[in-house]
């Protein structure tokens, strides 16, 4: 029993890493209708900025705040001067542009700071708390709670605020949004800026565990994309739950189903959710859309 609970807790904490990136991807998707592969790369860049500052003996919290400001500007600039050319075109092209951006950012980070692993100080201590025979580090709890907080804020932003409504309107139909007087271009910049901020928070949360390298989030990005697709692309709650499901299910399957083992465990969430999709084609938490001919 202790092992089972421990595995669930471990899975939640691993899943939170995926969820952090997945939330940023959902934010950009909700605001611009695109899947941004460079989200992880931008988060890594923000983490490097914070890391450089802490090396200049800037306090960690201040450094992270500075990297958040940097990220907002970076996100807005990327939208204005790079993505805008592609936003109304073929979405596949825009996605490939973000892939190019990811490669470029990774290359820049490798060039400036080398491909070596750098230690990133943690916002939360690594001390362990135990209850019911389960051990968990304060860092994991802190990361998970931060993700939940971000998720709730995002959900509220989209559902309860005018800004969220405007962002969604722009994503769904930029032209109608423009006709109804919304400042579409500025909203797109804000959407990208906010997503980059979210990425910076995610980067600062997971960098201590993954150690800072230019490709730090590449593997996590694949799982985050999977979570985004499983969670239904539009719902912050959905993708976080999907990310946790990936983390927990793969742990349990690996340990309790010997045939699957630790090598094939990643197949489990996909298979299970494929079964779910057969029942609910719009994803776990996606909205059902009515299509008109």
């Amino acid at each position: 029993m202790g092992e089972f609970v421990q595995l669930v807790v471990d899975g939640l904490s691993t899943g939170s890493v995926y969820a952090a990136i997945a939330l940023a991807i959902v934010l950009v998707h909700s605001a611009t209708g695109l899947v941004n592969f460079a989200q992880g790369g931008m988060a890594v860049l923000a983490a490097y900025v914070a890391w450089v500052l802490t090396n200049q003996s800037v306090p960690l919290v201040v450094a992270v705040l500075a990297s958040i400001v940097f990220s907002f500007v970076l996100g807005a600039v990327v939208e204005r001067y790079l993505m805008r050319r592609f936003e109304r075109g073929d979405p596949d092209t825009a996605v490939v542009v973000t892939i190019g951006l990811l490669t470029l950012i990774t290359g820049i980070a490798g060039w400036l700071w080398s491909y070596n692993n750098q230690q990133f100080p943690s916002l939360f201590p690594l001390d362990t708390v135990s209850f019911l025979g389960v051990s968990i580090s304060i860092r994991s709890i802190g990361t998970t709670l931060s993700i939940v907080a971000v998720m709730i804020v995002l959900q509220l932003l989209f559902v309860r605020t005018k800004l969220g409504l405007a962002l969604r309107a722009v994503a769904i139909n930029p032209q109608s949004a423009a006709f109804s007087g919304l400042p579409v271009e500025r909203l797109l910049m804000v959407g990208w800026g906010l997503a980059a901020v979210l990425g910076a928070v995610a980067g600062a949360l997971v960098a201590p565990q993954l150690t800072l390298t230019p490709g730090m989030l590449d593997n996590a990005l694949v799982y985050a994309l999977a979570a985004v697709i499983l969670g239904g692309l539009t719902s912050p709650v959905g993708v976080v739950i999907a990310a946790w499901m990936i983390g927990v299910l793969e742990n349990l399957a690996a340990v309790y189903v010997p045939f699957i083992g630790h090598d094939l465990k990643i197949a489990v969430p996909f298979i299970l959710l494929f079964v779910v999709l057969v029942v609910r084609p719009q994803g776990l938490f996606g909205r059902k859309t009515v299509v008109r001919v």
Partner: protein
Amino acid sequence: MARVMTAPASSPSSPSSSWRRRPWVRWATPLLIVAVLAVLPLVGTEFQNETLARIGVFAVAVLGLNVVMGYTGQVSLGQIFFLGFGAYVTAYGVSQDWNIVLVFVLACLLPAAAGLLVALAAARLGGLAIAMVTIALPIVGVPLAKRLNEYTGGSQGLSARFAESPEGSGLYDDQWTLYLVIAIGGVVFLLTHFLVRGKYGRAFAIVKGNENVAASMGISPYRYKVLAFTIASAIGGVSGFLYMLVIQYTSPETMSFGHSIELLAAMVIGGAASIVGSLLGGAFYVLVPQLTNQVDASLTALLQGAILLVVLFVLPGGLASLPRALTRGRRRLRAGRGPAAPPTTPSSTPGSGTAAEQPETERQGHA
């Protein structure tokens, strides 16, 4: 990525020119291509031939992706899996001394069967499910290849050399290999060309444009999606066969997710829904790492990212849209500094594959 594209692909329906209708052009063009391809392997150096052969491999892989994604509009993140599958089938067959023709047939059929199975289940559920299943293919494929180490050689992979030039042909191995790649790849390109120009191609385009319209016209989106996916998988298998022919080695790394994404990028850079674009995409996939290695081997990622962005910034429609872009540039010069040209294809609507036609983005690019 999940956005539904609303315009049918422009290229299959683009009107033929009067220039191209002249009989001598219609005869001479294919003849010229065949002649160039026949002579090419004889004049190049060994390394040039090897590079061209590699381009052939990835051009076929990109072509397969184009069938399902470019022409039919279904997001596939797992094309590399079928390349890897085909490569493994080939390597295993060669190591068992099976007849090479049989190996080739199996390298097409087995990936096609896998693709069919995947598509039968996923295509029923729409875009999201296809994206999900296809992203899972390389992610699961890599550990699966290691698990099946009896057949795959595990993480150490499989080597197979089976392209030695026949006795008495007087050809070097690299020339012989390139001829095989040109012949097999050429047939695949030709068949795909006829497929997408024909009634299936029109059906694919309608499904890509709007599934409900397709259904109302009596075209089953499901059937055509499954068909496109299966054909793409078979072509992927062929590219895997060619991969073994040229690279002569495969391992689980061959089918990693990163390479699948690189294929997708190559498809868009070459030009989605374009036969020539697939060839250019394959060339991009092979030549850009080569080029960046020449410039500075320690900055390859930075340079590759920059090149990709510059190409798409200048040509959002991919390399295959270069002539269109040039035409427009010339027209604009003639028309002075007036507003941009009207859309080049009548079917073009916002959200179609031709971003450069948006007036405001046009100015940005040439400012």
